[in-house]
């Protein structure tokens, strides 16, 4: 392996080969076929017997260059650890709902993968506790929110790779012209959206479902509501504050100032960039595109507080690296995760900031990252640290379906809010009880 070919060419061809191998690997659920694939691999390999191959899965990131970057980290790890080969697999399509869970049901899943840790994964014996990676020093370098989001039954099951958050973007020039200040309460937001709605340019874009999926959690959060209590055994959103929060969402929805039916959804800044709306709820990841389109004619605020008793809020999202508890090489996998997402500050900054725009989860990596030091990006980091909220590993997709239906019924079918919220909370509590049993 002398450097005759350029490193990128070599990476690309090796990557293509690995992808093919892994496609087959993924489809072949039976041990026999997996054995064949392994035999094919060892026949080509001239490594010593203790050589280990780890598979690492990523979902398909939208940003150009991410796939090459992930392959590069894997190759770099082999350079420092010649006994370990990391096969990076880029999985297109429905990663979180289909590809990854299906692979984790077999004995042949990836060794290392990204996702969101959940109680169900722990109960099914799918993910390995990573407590020994979190020394005191490491613990202090992660925001407690990121630690809590990966902590299940007092063990830490994942290392955060990437932090994301939602932001309310507004066109500075349009608001200045209308003499409107960036909204700090829900009432101000509704008034601003209505005042800025000229028909051709709508006031606010929250997604093509009129804000249901964007606001199911954020509206109650902005009222000071938590979805689960601190001890994580009770659903706590079934109260008067949630009712008021959803009531205000209905008011906003009914104001006629929202953009709906845009070509792309809220996660994409096209509607904002093309001037279809004066304000839009989207993520930090959209900021480079907005800067390129609008220069500095924009500002960001968190989702405004419901009222004086509430507080601004946003979601604290992103991806978490986990280790497959059914993998053959758990220790090697943990070492790789430590190297990449705990020790390798350069890779973490590259991954979060060189392609899209995210916040490196390690505090020291974020603090030393040049692009996050000033302007809107710096504001976004402050918003994340002050107002970012997580649902936690006990909140499930089934619960999301329940409250999505609830808010949709409130907005679209004129359902009684108090009753709908109470029923949804009961349904979620039944889910939680079942999961904790």
């Amino acid at each position, binding site marked *: 392996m002398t450097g005759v070919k350029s490193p990128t060419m070599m990476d690309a061809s090796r990557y293509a080969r690995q992808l093919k191998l892994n496609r087959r690997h993924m489809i072949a659920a039976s041990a026999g076929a997996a054995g064949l694939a392994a035999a094919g691999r060892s026949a080509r390999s001239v490594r010593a017997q203790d050589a280990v191959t780890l598979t690492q899965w990523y979902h398909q990131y939208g940003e150009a260059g991410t796939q090459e970057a992930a392959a590069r980290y894997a190759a770099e790890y082999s350079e420092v650890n010649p006994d370990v080969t990391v096969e990076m697999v880029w999985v297109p399509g429905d990663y979180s709902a289909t590809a990854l869970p299906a692979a984790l*049901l077999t004995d042949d899943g990836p060794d290392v993968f990204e996702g969101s840790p959940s109680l*169900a994964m722990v109960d099914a014996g799918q993910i390995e506790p990573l407590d020994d990676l979190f020394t005191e020093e490491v613990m202090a370098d992660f925001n407690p929110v990121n630690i809590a989001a990966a902590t299940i039954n007092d063990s830490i099951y994942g290392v955060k790779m990437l932090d994301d958050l939602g932001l309310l973007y507004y066109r500075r020039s349009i608001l200045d012209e209308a003499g409107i200040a960036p909204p700090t309460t829900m009432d101000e937001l509704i008034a601003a959206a209505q005042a800025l709605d000229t028909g051709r340019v709508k006031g606010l874009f929250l997604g093509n479902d009129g804000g249901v999926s964007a606001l199911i959690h954020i509206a109650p959060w902005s009222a000071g509501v938590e979805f689960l209590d601190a001890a994580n055994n009770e659903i706590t959103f079934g109260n008067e504050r949630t009712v008021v929060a959803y009531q205000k969402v209905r008011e906003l929805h009914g104001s006629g100032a929202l953009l*709906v*039916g845009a070509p792309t959804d809220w996660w994409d800044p096209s509607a904002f960039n093309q001037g279809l709306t004066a304000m839009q709820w989207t993520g930090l990841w959209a900021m480079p595109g907005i800067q390129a389109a609008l220069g500095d004619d924009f500002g960001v605020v968190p989702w405004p507080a419901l009222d004086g008793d509430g507080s601004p809020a946003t979601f604290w999202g992103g991806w978490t690296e986990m280790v497959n508890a059914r993998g053959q090489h758990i220790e090697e996998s943990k070492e790789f995760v430590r190297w990449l997402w705990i020790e390798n500050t350069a890779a973490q900054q590259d991954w979060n900031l060189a392609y899209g725009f995210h916040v490196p989860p390690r505090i020291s990596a974020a603090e030393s990252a040049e692009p996050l030091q000033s302007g809107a990006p710096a504001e976004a980091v402050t918003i994340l640290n002050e107002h970012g909220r997580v649902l936690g590993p006990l909140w499930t997709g089934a619960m999301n379906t329940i409250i999505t239906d609830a808010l949709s019924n409130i907005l679209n079918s004129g359902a009684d809010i108090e009753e709908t919220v109470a029923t949804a909370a009961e349904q979620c509590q039944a889910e939680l009880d079942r999961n904790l049993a």
Partner: protein
Amino acid sequence: MGTKREATFAFWVFMAPILLGLLVFTFVPIGWGFLLSLSDARNSVDIGNFIGLDNYAFMLQSPQFQDSLITIIIFTIFIVPLTLFASLGLAMLVNGAGWGRGIFRTAFFIPTAISYVIASLIWRMGLFSGVPSGVMNVVLYEWFGIEAPISWITSSNPPWYWLVLVTVRLWLQVGLYMIIFIAGLQEIPRSLYEAAFVDGARSGWMTFRHITLPMLRNTLVAVLLLNFIAAFQAFDEFWNIMGGTAASAGNRSLARPPLVYLYQVALGDQDYGRGTAGAFILTAIIVGVTLLQGRFFGFGRST
């Protein structure tokens, strides 16, 4: 005797692969699925943690599952009669065309070859896009002077999304059923019409009502059955038009058929026990209605 043994051998050579395929890919999964529906199988497809009929009880009581059944019944009420009338009408027009019969037949049949996903995207992002430049909004503005663009998919009052969902399936499947009707029409002996004309019948409603329709009964019932089963298994257009990705999941709450809900439960929430239980309930409904329909219309009985 040798030929008989050879025939038997040939039979098994030809039939074994398909029987084996059916066994491995259809019957084993059905049996496995049934056992899963009686198990507590979360993040797992292992059988053994049997919990009786709990999964069935949950699905039957689940407001989401009940709503999905209502959704699919509404959809079926729209799509089945519409498809039946449109495809029979087209078949009679095409069959009676003086020239270009082949061209028309092909033209109406072509949409059948298009994937539901692609058609759904055309419907959502092209024809029924909610922005003023969406095709239907342009048509409304140019021809009828309606200025305010309609957000076809999000609008719940009136529920325009039904127009989007029904028309896309109608366009995709009407050609296929038209071909089946044309085949049925060509089976009817010309002599029946000639005899009727001799007896003084007039061409049109009279011959249609008393000759065409009775002679088409088996075709009609077959189309009705196929159409009903296909409607109850609707997934692609609902999935791609009422959401498509994680964003705007709120639209999915407006019209979520059983298969979309079961997909969310089984794959999204990784609850294979509840997911398969719902699938068996749905199967029971389809089988029950099909049997009733067969009894009512006398499917397969000679005319």
